[in-house]
Structure formats: C-alpha cells, structure tokens
C-alpha cells in the first residue's frame, strides 16, 4: 500500500495514496498504523483525500488503529474524506466513533 508519513504542526499525518482500501491492502494499512503506535506515535491523523472506495476490511483496519491508539491514551482521527467513503462510516455508525475533519487545518485546530 502506498502511504506517506509526515509530521505537520506536531501531528503525525498518514496520507493514504490509494484510491481503494479493500481486503487486498487493508492488512498492510492495519500493520502500518500498529507499527506507528508501537513506535510511540499515538496521535495520528489519517488523510483520506485520495481514497474513493473503502470496504468493511478497510473500516476494520482504521477501527483497529483507533482502538490501539486509544489503549495508549492516544487518538486516531480522520480527515479529507470523500462523500461516498463518509457514507460508509455513517451506515456503520462509525462516524460516531471517529473524529472526522473536513481537512487537515480543521484537524490541527481541534487536536492542538
């Protein structure tokens, strides 16, 4: 999976450079987030601007990251979500679990 990691305004931002998160690559996403958390990066913003499709395994990978970050008193938030992707969070009520921001600036304002 094509991922970019950047430190911006003191936040760890994980850019997902894929149009599709499904059962083929969601395992890699889950492992990458888990690795970050194990390295002590427990406050993560996942930037999803490029992502136009997510399936149940992709939602599961992000939920895993959320739970692992929370277990270490951190937080995994989401930003720049496309409408169709957001609708999957709404359908599963996961929009009530994650903090979802319109863009990174809104995420930084809220997180700092």
């Amino acid at each position, binding site marked *: 999976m094509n991922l970019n990691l950047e430190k911006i305004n003191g936040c760890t931002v994980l850019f997902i450079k894929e149009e599709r998160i499904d059962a*083929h690559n969601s395992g890699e996403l889950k492992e990458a987030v888990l690795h970050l958390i194990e390295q002590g990066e427990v406050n993560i913003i996942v930037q999803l601007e490029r992502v136009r*499709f997510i*399936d149940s395994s992709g939602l*599961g990978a992000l939920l895993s990251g959320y739970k692992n970050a929370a277990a270490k008193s951190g937080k995994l938030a989401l930003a720049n979500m496309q409408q169709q992707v957001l609708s*999957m969070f709404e359908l*599963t009520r996961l929009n009530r679990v994650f903090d979802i921001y319109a863009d990174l600036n809104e995420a930084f304002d809220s997180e700092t």
Partner: protein
Amino acid sequence: MCNSIIQVEVIIPTQTKYLDLIGSIGEHIAKELDEFSGDREALAYHLNLVLTEATVNAIKHGILTNPEDTVRITIHIQENELNIKVYDHGQGFDLESVPIPDFEHPKEGGMGIFFIRTLMDSVTYTRQGDCNVLEIIKYLS
C-alpha cells in the same frame, strides 16, 4: 425502467488482488444503466462494495478447502432486476446466523454481510451441486 439485458460472467483465482477488477465491473455497469433514475453514483459505489464483499467472502471460504480454487461471479440485468451470483466451493455457512453488527461496541469484522443486506433488496445463500451460491438481487426501479 431498464429494458436492456446485460450478462457478465467472470472467473477469478482465489486472490484478493482481483477485487478491484470485480468491483470496477459493478461500478461500470451502474454507469451504463441509462434508464436508471436513482442516484447513479451511489448505486455505482454500492455495486462495487457488494461485489467486493461477496467476492472476499467466497475467496475466504474457497481457499480453506483448496488454495488453487476459483470464484465464479455472474451479473445479470434484465428489465428492472439486477442479479448477482457468487459461487464458492467452500464448506458454506449459515447466512441467517450472521448477526447484525453491534454499533455501540463496534468490532473490526462482521460488516460485510451487513453491507450486502442493507444495500441490496434480497440475499440468499444456498447449496447448488458442489457449489455454494450467494445470490443478491437489487431492484432498479
């Protein structure tokens, strides 16, 4: 009303790298339904998702019994009915016993069947000869 007839049959190895191909076929079909009056973008996403989830399901079941197995997917549209069948050669499962996800205590798995049930109009899983068939119907009118 959609009067045109479309029939597609695809056979893939039990490998998740083909999910994009299968999902994309669903998405393209949704965009070809000239007379569909609903939200075409939403239908395209939903068909992509449902085909992806159903195919993952069949891959997981098939691969347990034979790693060299294949999954067959058929899509048939006639008049206002879109019919998807996904065939696996696994041991099968009881569709009726798959629970609705616990939204108050969300878990990482178990949302695939929920998506299919929620977004489509009819879902059945039956044994036919040496195959299991997940049959999904969506009415387009």
